[in-house]
């Protein structure tokens, strides 16, 4: 992370060209996998963010739906209405392309928020454990160890189930998305806490931390202003890989019917709906959401792999 230090005597090169000539950008420019993966991610994220502008129909607006359009195959005009849909329609005549765009919005929203939340919990607990040590460290790391013996998806399911029991029935559908975020985040924080603690244990004995302590800075400013920036690069790698896992976890939970409700379908919910039409020959209702999910998860995963190699000086 040394290349981010700015010197006041203005360098002749702009910030961008400095970054472009740096090791990090060099390794990016020379990795076709990383370029393709990031392009795919960029296209998918942008189309999810601008879904209301791109989508030809609003799948949540009953006025735009025509039941006569149900089960229209992709690219061919409907027998009754002569409407054509790029990726076909589902049983209620909803345009599959539009539902995918809106579904991806929810998948990405849940995935990104869950990873951010897990990251915050993990960083705080990891730093506290490393900096203070003693019984706090023992307690935090023991909890992490125990949680790690249970598969993350199982932990997320249990949290979702308990939360569902606690919320009153009339709010369950509205709260489902947020419960899902918290469930995935709580099943995922351990990775961050372990990595941050490991890196912070090394940093904490370095001279700059001793110097900061000597001039009387408090524990929390030292932890978050001094140590944290120096342990961030492994956190970034884990966050990217966690994002792919969180997207898949969200899809799995929604597919199992314990995630996003049918009123706010994510990609997993769409696959769940599409599975019912597999036997009657309407393959497109399942196929396109599944492909989108795969493309998203796979490219984020590849990006994470590349990031791990690029940020790890030992592998260079």
């Amino acid at each position: 992370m040394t290349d981010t230090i700015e010197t006041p005597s203005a360098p002749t090169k702009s910030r961008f060209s400095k970054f472009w000539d740096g090791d990090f950008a060099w390794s990016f420019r020379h990795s076709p996998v990383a370029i393709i993966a990031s392009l795919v991610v960029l296209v998918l994220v942008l189309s999810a963010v601008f879904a209301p502008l791109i989508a030809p129909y609003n799948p949540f607006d009953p006025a735009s739906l025509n039941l006569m359009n149900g089960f229209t195959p992709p690219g061919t005009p409907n027998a009754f209405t002569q409407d054509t849909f790029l990726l076909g329609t589902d049983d209620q005549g909803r345009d599959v392309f539009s539902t995918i765009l809106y579904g991806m919005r929810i998948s990405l929203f849940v995935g990104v928020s869950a990873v951010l939340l897990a990251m915050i919990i993990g960083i705080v607990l990891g730093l506290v454990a490393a900096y203070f040590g003693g019984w706090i460290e023992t307690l935090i790391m023991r909890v992490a160890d125990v949680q790690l013996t249970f598969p993350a998806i199982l932990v997320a399911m249990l949290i979702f189930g308990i939360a569902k029991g606690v919320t009153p029935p009339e709010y369950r559908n509205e709260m489902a998305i947020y419960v899902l975020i918290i469930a995935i985040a709580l099943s995922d924080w351990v990775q961050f806490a372990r990595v941050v603690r490991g890196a912070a244990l090394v940093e904490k004995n370095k001279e700059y931390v001793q110097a900061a302590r000597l001039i009387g800075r408090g524990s929390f400013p030292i932890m978050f202003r001094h140590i944290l920036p120096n342990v961030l690069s492994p956190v970034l790698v884990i966050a990217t890989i966690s994002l792919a896992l969180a997207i898949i976890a969200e899809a799995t939970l929604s597919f199992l019917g314990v995630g996003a409700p049918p009123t706010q379908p994510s990609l997993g919910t769409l696959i769940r709906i599409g599975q019912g039409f597999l036997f009657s020959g309407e393959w497109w209702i399942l196929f396109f959401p599944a492909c989108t999910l795969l493309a998203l998860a796979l490219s984020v995963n590849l990006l994470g792999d590349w990031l791990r190699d690029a940020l790890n000086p030992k592998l260079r």
Partner: protein
Amino acid sequence: MFAYIVRRMLQSVIVLLVVGLVAFSMFRFVGDPIDNMLGQERTQADIDRLRTELGLDQPIPVQYYKFLKEAVQGNFGVSYRQGRPVSTIIAERAPATLELAFVSGFLAITMGIALGVFTAIRRQGVAANIIMTVSLIGVSLPTFLIGILLIYIFSVELDLLPSFGRGETVMIGNWSTGFLTTSGLKALILPAITLGLYQMTLIMRLVRSEMLEVLRADYVRFARARGLSDRVINFRHALKNTMVPVITITGLQLGSIIAFAIITETVFQWPGVGLLFINAIQFVDIPVMAAYLMLISVMFVSINLIVDLLYYAIDPRLRVDARAT
């Protein structure tokens, strides 16, 4: 040695007590148990009577103690949804899950080791490279999509295998088995592959990397110099020495097979404990959820304990460390 075992067991007991506390709080604080058991027409007298009957008027620690006492005896109350004792329901469903887990575990271990050895010995071969690439894709595909893909190929397109259920089952005592009928065996194939595939690729990659390491070791080179045949070197000398880490990882993976069975069982509507649990979450059936939570924790904690103790017995270096501290 003795101190280590005691410390490790104590730890497991604490974990189980904490999980028990979670399960207990679900019962006690998620919804009102009285509400769940009495209908709409109830009087204050009814409520008070049931409160004393259930012991809900006693202090929380006493209630927790009672809950644990019942739980140890396998008594988790009555399912809100089915109106039958949870222990009976789980006992009915368990054979389906255990048979599925057993077959896919067996598949994962045998195929994983065989393919791992193969890809290690024929490292440069075309077949080995194809297997490695396919396994990479297999790892990144979510389990439920693999299940759907298999259903699409073998049930929808080829119409060879059933896509849901267990087929016909035969009762042997209290155990319902699908092993004895053709339809039962046919129904087992797709779910077992779906569940075992991920573990198989994991074991395969592990065996491969361990094997590559061992094949470079001096004793293997000496064995070659002695003129032993390739088969004896690969299987007698090399494979044996890759087994220690493989056994540990496989042991730890046993638990995740049961956990991932939830997903497989839902895709194939397999009438096992996992499907029961998913339905319990959907309908907020607290007793079933609590029972499953306790059951799976006991399983995970004991597997971890056994693996740790085995490791301690196998690896002498750990013993030295323990004595030093």
